[in-house]
């Protein structure tokens, strides 16, 4: 007759499950917590305003972005599309990442590689990303691109449009616009004001020859974006989805545009 000690009983199963559960939870808390749920409100809340009357579709923003963020030629973090015609003027719409306050990509990422910074920027942790591409499917704005192959060799946008400020992403991760967080962070450290001082402002805003883009802190009533939002009617893309983008557009007004096209 076999002794009781030799049997695996219900108590053992429960113990095993308790140990397993504790291990899993420990694993979770070994990692630094990161915001994947409601946006934490930091001191600064960055936002962008794009005046569609001023955008001429030149694409300088896309090129400056490629250089400063070392983006390969087949990917655009900031895509400019021709959206229509108004009184003989062609209307272009640049689309960076919307840095949504309720971002679908952050919700769906299985590893928390997409997360909210306290200043509202939706960040990508390229070391954590596993390349499942769920965020691309979830993003309503097509703001994300996958690195199907490694980006090797020189970047054609460098040095004409600027110098890379961040590390090139490896093959197999999803990448997107980061509001040039590196310029904001370095600028703040140097005592500059993002949106006012060029060195602390996203590359696309600085590169725009018609000053169609404004950048700044929503918490600062005197920032260029706060002023623009107060003074002019604006809208955001696909507001019906409830994503609450941080990129605002000033609708095109023919009287503000120069010449015909």
């Amino acid at each position, binding site marked *: 007759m076999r002794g009781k000690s*030799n*049997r*695996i*009983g*219900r108590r053992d*199963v429960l113990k095993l*499950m308790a140990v397993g559960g504790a291990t*899993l939870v420990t*694993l*979770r808390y*070994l*990692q630094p917590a990161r915001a*994947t*749920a409601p946006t934490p409100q930091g001191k600064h809340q960055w936002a962008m305003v794009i005046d569609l009357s001023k955008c001429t579709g030149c694409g300088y923003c896309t090129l400056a972005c490629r250089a400063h963020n070392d983006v390969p030629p087949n990917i655009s973090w900031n895509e400019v*599309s021709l*959206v*229509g015609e108004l009184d003989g003027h062609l209307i272009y*719409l640049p*689309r960076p990442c919307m840095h949504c306050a309720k971002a*679908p990509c*952050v*919700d*769906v*990422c*299985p*590893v*928390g*590689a997409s997360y909210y910074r306290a200043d509202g920027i939706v960040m990508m942790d390229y070391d*954590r*990303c*596993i*390349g*499942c*591409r*769920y965020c*691309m*499917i*979830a*993003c*309503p*704005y*097509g703001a*994300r*691109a*996958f*690195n*199907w*192959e*490694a980006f090797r060799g020189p970047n054609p946008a460098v040095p004409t449009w600027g110098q890379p400020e961040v590390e090139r992403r490896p*093959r*197999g*991760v*999803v990448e997107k616009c980061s509001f040039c967080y590196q310029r904001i962070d370095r600028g703040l450290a140097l005592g500059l004001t993002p949106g006012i001082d060029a060195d602390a402002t996203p590359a696309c805003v600085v590169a725009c020859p018609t000053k169609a883009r404004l950048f700044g802190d929503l918490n600062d009533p005197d920032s260029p974006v706060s002023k623009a939002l107060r003074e002019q009617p604006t*809208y955001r*893309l*696909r507001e019906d*989805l*409830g994503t609450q983008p941080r990129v605002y*557009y000033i*609708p095109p007004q023919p009287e503000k545009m120069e010449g015909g096209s």
Partner: protein
Amino acid sequence: MKRFLRLVPFDPWKIWLVALGLMIVLGLAGGVLVFWKGLIITNLSDWVPWGLWITLDLSSIALAAGAFSLCAGVHLFGLKRYQPLARTALFIGLIGYTMALCALLLDIGRPQNFWHPLVYWNPHSTLWEVTMCVCLYLLVLILENMPTLASWSFLRERFPKLSNLMKQAHHLAPFLAVVGLLLSSLHQSSLGAVYGVLKARPIWFKPELSVLFMLSAIIGGISLTVLASMIAARLSRQAKVNDVLLERTAHFVGYLLIAYFYFRAWDLLATTYTYAPGRSEGLQILTKGTLSFNFWFGEMIMGILLPMIILLYQPARQNPFWRMVALFLAAAGVVAYRWDTNLVGLMVVVSYLPGPIQIAYTTYHPAPVEWITTLGILAYGLLAFSLGVKYLRVVDHRWVTEEAKSLHVEAEEVALSR
């Protein structure tokens, strides 16, 4: 001719093994190519980032659902007679989940980071929940399959102690059935929710997807288990089945198909009312567009209605050939449903530009490397099942669990000691 056949060692078993082996080698070569060159060699794109491999994941997990459903039946609903069938289902389940993991490893851009969801949690993500449940359930399946694996003669003869210890795991069966039911209910439905929670994709954005994925998985899983048992019994001397058991289970699948048809029909009808950008275009693709053949024949007529009729009409059900046809169609219908569901949401792109919502369309045809790796993974599944039938008596309805015996003995002991 007869003399020729005698000269050539014509052994169907060996030919089968060689054929599967070749497919696995080809698949492995394809896998190496994918890891080496990257996903650029597939036909996946930023517009259609999920394709054939995701269908393989979803299908192998869905068709592995026989394991949890039959185990729940045996251990929780008291259908003890179905124990041998549950044993087959458990083995198919183990194969299915390992197949899914292989396909996932190919599909993700950074396979070396596959373990990240276990360590870096995002509890808001349905995909995170699916990954956790799949990994935990794989552990459950390994434990549940221990007694089966212990019956491998090599293990029994060379490592009798290990084999005995593994057999002990059958005491856990009822607990594992509970845990398995919990984990499976979670991730089988969440796989539907992976699609169902995306507001950006109107054809997916609905709560029904979870329910439909769960229900179709149970149907596909049980169908495949019964079908595999019937085929094994016809091709292998090692497989012995009790046809009454199989026929009853097939009958049950017939009833499940009614429930599934009811939900699918309402899901479809509800989608036809009023124009909704993106959703209506998706429906068009399913009912009239490129996926219409798959949808009407693969999913609806051949996948639900025909098997339903065959399995509920007694003379047809009792005919082994027609029963097998029906079970095959039901399982294939589930695969077609997964393929169509994944693709239809990706083929319709809803614009983000201001003004009336514009719709753009994308296309996708799997690349050769996607096909050969998929076939390789399928061959692995078939090989594992074939070896299981031959060496582990995976399909053997004479096999009796020791559980019943030991419970009996224990009861006597208690009676005596009191």
